[in-house]
């Protein structure tokens, strides 16, 4: 491993992408992800790649579409309103079965919203977002180190399934500085791309399109796409657990909210509350099987998000009524604090385990001198 460097998440994802042989970036400015195109404009020319600031988000995603067609590892990044603008292009890329990586450094919405952290684009990321039956292979980093590492992971997933992959970050993970270690070389798996439109001399013509006029043809393509998602659901589930074994209550959170929950969990344990943390890393495919197993083991859940309740729907689908799933969310760029989440955990424990927990719920530290 190399030496420790202090870096923003938005810069780390650039270094990760370039280390993973990304050689084309197309973007358009929007806070809080502006460091991504900024560093790309500096780093891409150094490795002989293409950096282009497009005239709009829509242009940028369609440039990614074109670059992906020739087999280059191509990427774009934006933040919530800009990602919405890219949706048509993303659907086309998924329809044409092409690999690419899209980074969403989420901010407050809906509409123009604000530039503060949020997780309210979960549905858009994992359920499709654009039109048609497609999904994005979605991963959620929670540290600057993972912003670096997930770039290669996202490109590998995209190439493996010939499908766009999304790194679903947020204004906290994107903008925070942390020391990271950049390895001398990054493990990445770039398969042969015999389907790429690289000039047909000496071989038959390759056609990449999302237009299939005959319904029988389009259904066949759709079934093929769905088969890829079924395969990914078996192979690409990623998650992390903390103190789940003996927990009465398991916090479920991803990205920066999972970081905050980890602090809440440590506080809870110090107070004798049996709280654990389950952190989905892959949001699609979602770690449903493991959550179902934990529910069968008698675990109860509190899902925490910076949204009105989006991932909690997938948690409830996984748990399927076997145990209780509570929800706590903050909206519009508000970030829940560790004590605030601890309070909610206390309330959930009291309600779910009235015999074991009568903790008087509130642990608020303001005025307590702790």
């Amino acid at each position, binding site marked *: 491993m190399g030496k420790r460097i202090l870096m923003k998440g938005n810069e780390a994802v650039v270094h990760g992408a370039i280390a993973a042989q990304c050689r084309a970036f197309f973007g358009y400015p929007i806070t809080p992800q502006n460091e991504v195109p900024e560093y790309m404009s500096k780093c891409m020319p150094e490795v002989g790649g293409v950096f282009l600031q497009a005239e709009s988000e829509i242009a940028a995603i369609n440039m990614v579409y074109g670059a992906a067609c020739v087999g280059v590892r191509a990427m774009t990044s934006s933040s919530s309103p800009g990602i919405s603008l890219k949706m048509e292009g993303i659907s086309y890329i998924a329809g044409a079965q092409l690999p690419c990586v899209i980074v969403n450094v989420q901010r407050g919405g809906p509409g123009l919203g604000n530039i503060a952290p949020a997780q309210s684009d979960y549905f858009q990321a994992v359920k499709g977002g654009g039109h048609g039956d497609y999904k994005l292979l979605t991963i959620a980093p929670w540290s600057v180190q993972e912003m670096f590492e997930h770039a290669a992971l996202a490109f590998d997933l995209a190439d493996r399934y010939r499908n766009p992959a999304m790194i679903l970050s947020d204004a906290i993970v994107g903008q925070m500085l*942390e020391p990271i270690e950049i390895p001398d070389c990054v493990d990445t798996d770039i398969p042969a791309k015999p389907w790429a439109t690289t000039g047909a001399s000496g071989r038959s013509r390759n056609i990449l399109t999302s237009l299939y006029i005959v319904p029988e043809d389009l259904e066949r393509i759709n079934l093929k796409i769905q088969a890829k998602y079924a395969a990914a659901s078996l192979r690409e589930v990623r998650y992390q657990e903390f103190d789940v074994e003996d927990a009465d209550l398991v916090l479920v959170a991803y990205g920066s909210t999972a970081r905050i929950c980890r602090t809440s969990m440590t506080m809870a344990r110090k107070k004798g509350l049996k709280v654990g943390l389950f952190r989905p890393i892959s949001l699609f495919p979602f770690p449903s099987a493991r959550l179902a197993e934990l529910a069968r083991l008698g675990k109860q859940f509190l899902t925490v998000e910076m949204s009105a309740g989006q991932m909690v729907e997938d948690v409830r689908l996984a748990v399927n009524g076997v145990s209780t799933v509570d929800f706590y969310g903050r909206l519009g760029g508000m970030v829940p*604090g560790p004590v605030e989440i601890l309070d909610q955990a206390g309330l959930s424990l009291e309600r779910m385990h009235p015999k074991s927990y009568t903790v008087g719920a509130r642990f608020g530290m303001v005025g307590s001198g702790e």
Partner: protein
Amino acid sequence: MHEEVIMSGTGGQGIMIMGQILAHAAMTEGRHVVWFPSYGPEARGGTADCTVIVSTDEIGSPISAHPDTLVGMHQFLFNRYQPIVKIGGRLIVNTSLIDPATVRTDCDVVMVPANVLAEEIGNVRAANMVMLGVYVASTGVVSVESVLASLPEVFPSHRHKLIPLNESALRKGAELVRG
């Protein structure tokens, strides 16, 4: 050791770089550290604050709901963050722009006329480094030497001519604490 500090002020006061220099110094001392910014869309005159967490342990939450220390450079955000500082925490107050009468009394308070002190060494814009010097010397989170050594690492090379000014502002702040 676990220290959470919020540095707050207004756009243009150098709030972000104060925190970045502290974060860099903490990293060079082998600590875990996270820096997180928050600011309005304005380049100058809007609100600007950053959180720095320095710890001997791995850091969970990168945001601080109840900081150990608040460094206040301007009245507006000082009023917002002062109530959430832990009782018995530390307030480092720029009295050039914050009315001392508005400061909580249940904390360890350090009053610093940072703008005046920075003007004395030649540039009011070094007020942030005076405050950082006070912060570092009064908390001991990192050594003043590590902070000084971090300046050339954090400042882009085209700003290196400003390092001597910033060094003297940092020393001035630290000396204020040490007496």
